């Protein structure tokens, strides 16, 4: 493992971009490494297990990760992750549009 080069931990937003969308109570977030050199680091950082463990009250169902290696992309499908979804949730953002920034805010596993 590479040691961090400075004391400030980098976050996913430093190496990748993302967009989230919803279908019912299922949220999906696609994440893309800007630089192919960082794709392995992105995959190591964003595992289905880590995401589910980090947000246990929000993500109540299964998390599946799809990989598009030739585009340096990951797609996370998170079931029962929208507080009931747009039909039930009283969250101001009942679609979970902002949830891409939950993943972009995670610290990198450097």
């Amino acid at each position: 493992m590479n040691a961090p080069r400075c004391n400030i931990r980098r976050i996913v937003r430093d190496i990748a971009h993302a967009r989230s969308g919803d279908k019912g109570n299922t949220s999906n977030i696609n994440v893309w490494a800007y630089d192919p050199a960082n794709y392995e680091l992105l995959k190591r950082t964003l595992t289905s297990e880590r995401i589910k463990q980090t947000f246990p009250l929000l993500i109540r169902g299964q998390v599946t990760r799809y990989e598009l290696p030739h585009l340096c992309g990951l797609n996370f499908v998170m079931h029962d992750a929208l507080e009931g979804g747009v039909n039930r949730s009283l969250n101001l953002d009942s679609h979970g549009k902002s949830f891409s920034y939950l993943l972009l805010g995670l610290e990198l596993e450097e």
Partner: protein
Amino acid sequence: MAIFRIGTGAGFSSDRLNPAVDLVERGALNAIVLECLGERTVAFGHRDRMADPQRGYNSLLERRMRALLRACRKAGTMMITNMGAANPRAAAARTLDVARELGLKGLKVACIEGDDVSTLVPRDAPFMDEPGMLSDVDLPVVGMNAYLGMDAIIPALGAKADVIIGGRLADPSMFLAPLAHCFSWRASDMPRLGAGTLVGHLMECGMQVTGGYFADPGVKDVEKLADCGYPIAEVQDDGSAVITKLPGTGGCVTPATVKEQLLYEVHDPSCYLTPDVTADFSRVEVAAAGPDRVKVSRASGSSRPEMLKVTVGFDGGFQGEAGLSYAGPGAHGRAQLAAEIVRDRMARVHGVKNDIRVDLIGVSSLFATARVRATEAEDVRLHVALRSRQKEDAELMLWEVESLLCCGPAGGGGYRGVIAPCVMTKSVLIPREQVKPTLEVMVA
């Protein structure tokens, strides 16, 4: 035809209009698509239609038609839209009225119906993506609409309609239909239908592929976002396409903007279901092809689904939202006290048992359930939300929040409260042979 030029003039019900006019005037388009329907939008349309049988279509339809019809005729651009929502017939009639007012004699308006399947779906129909069945929902049904594919749209293209208006036309199918018609793609040519579906998928959300919903200053900068341009797809016979936009418009088309849209609201990239095809986006190539030009290729597809998705809309009662702000030293504590007072009094004084959600905007709101670390803010807005079948519950909640102005913690100000109707939607499936799209062509 070597290249088919198709543009997007709306990517959701409330999308911008002036960039659509610009696109028609300067885009030399063969076709423009206005995608204006979400699952819940059609349910709201049904509520509107119940209140007034002449309504139920997109509330911006008249304004959009007035701004676009003459430019479309001048440019030789045909229009396809699902602005008909829950009432395509009334939408088509209103469009004809506008065309006549504009003096567009001979304009052909096609109306596609048959997506309303409320008499065909049994009450014991199981949900598509969760346990249970329709009859489990203890709410009044407002409407049921099947997603129609390109086979519902192509007859209108054959009739040489200038404007095609439908209700629940599937988003990518509105793009795929004119491509398949123009290039004479066979209904069994699944790789090409998959490729055309990718074009539709990338285009259907409008500016989300040209720099909209992308900017993050300092990390992902986008120029002139306030004047972002709608997308154009230059599509070839093999289904590959260049995604671009008009010169001089704001925004950007880059591999990054295209990739974010590639998997937007997609689950398994190798299995994206539409009424037309099981599309495969897993091997799509995305390549820069000049400034604000990105080439997409290698989408594919396999069998056409035998079942069509149906959105069932229910009357969900009302949602009330109310807010009050606190600022300066101790703002967080005062807002927290206000939140406790509202919760306590709604239950104890009014006996309202519905779930009430209280957020402290500035401290923790969107990510409250995710438990991301809260900040210590000095500008905090109490935000209370409640949903109920009884409008009175929402009215009581608004009253309680407003009463904090005199009876709550010190220094609260800026009360606002609003009550809005609610819908609930569920998805079921219907065998496609039971759904019979109809076409009527009217002439201005």
